[in-house]
């Protein structure tokens, strides 16, 4: 992370342990599947960004820019409660996003 948001999120009541567990699952899938691809398309650069920053502030910036059509970057917006229950739905969204990029 470029900045340490941890105290901010803890103050807002985020369960950081659950968040890290979720990132662990997605992060490993990300490494095995996405990082391993040769010739990764441009949109994946922002997937890197999202995976490392992973919070609403930055995603909102990307969406705002996209709305203004300043940048034409494929975007995936994810909402999660940082529990493990929605991993299946998240996988489907992420896989569909990757299919769009191919």
């Amino acid at each position: 992370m470029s900045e340490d948001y941890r105290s901010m999120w803890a103050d807002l009541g985020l369960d950081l342990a659950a968040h890290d567990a979720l990132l662990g699952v997605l992060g490993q899938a990300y490494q095995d599947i996405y990082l391993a691809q040769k010739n990764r398309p441009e949109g994946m650069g922002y997937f890197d960004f999202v995976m490392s920053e992973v919070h609403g502030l930055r995603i909102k910036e990307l969406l705002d820019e996209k709305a203004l059509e300043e940048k034409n970057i494929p975007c995936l917006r994810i909402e999660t409660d940082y529990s493990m229950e929605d991993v299946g739905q998240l996988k489907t969204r992420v896989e569909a996003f990757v299919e769009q990029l191919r």
Partner: protein
Amino acid sequence: MRFAGIDIGSRTIELVVVDEAGQIKAGFQADTGFDPITEAKKIVDGVSFDRIMATGYGRNLFEIAFEAATVTEIKAHAKGARVFFPESNAVLDIGGQDSKAISLFENGRVKKFEMNDRCAAGTGKFLEIMAKTLGYDIEEFGRQALLAAGWHIHLCRRHQVAGAGNLRRLD
């Protein structure tokens, strides 16, 4: 060559076999039940094909059991829609447990997709219950909605269960 596609959904499993020209040679359907991979194995048993691809929420179970390729329902819908409706530019999938809206580019690729899998009001199950409450068959329900007089009642912004309760009180 025969190619098969299997869709392991939350309520039903569909299996279709096509030839090289894309003509449907066989089709099967079964309930998913509580053990999707066992039902998938049963439905595939005895069906001949050279390659199979899986989609739906159970696709990864199938991938492991059969060493098959997978694709998300979103891409599968896009491909299928263009085969049957070459002029289409959008797909609306009302599933048992979720809904998906997909828009397509001119060339048939997925442009944008949205999924509602968080709220019961966005499911086929909800529509079934509402139809029954109002005394319609589900097949008739959509047509009746399109014929409606053009006013709508605000049932409940947030909750399917509360909305259903409100509907009964309106009768």
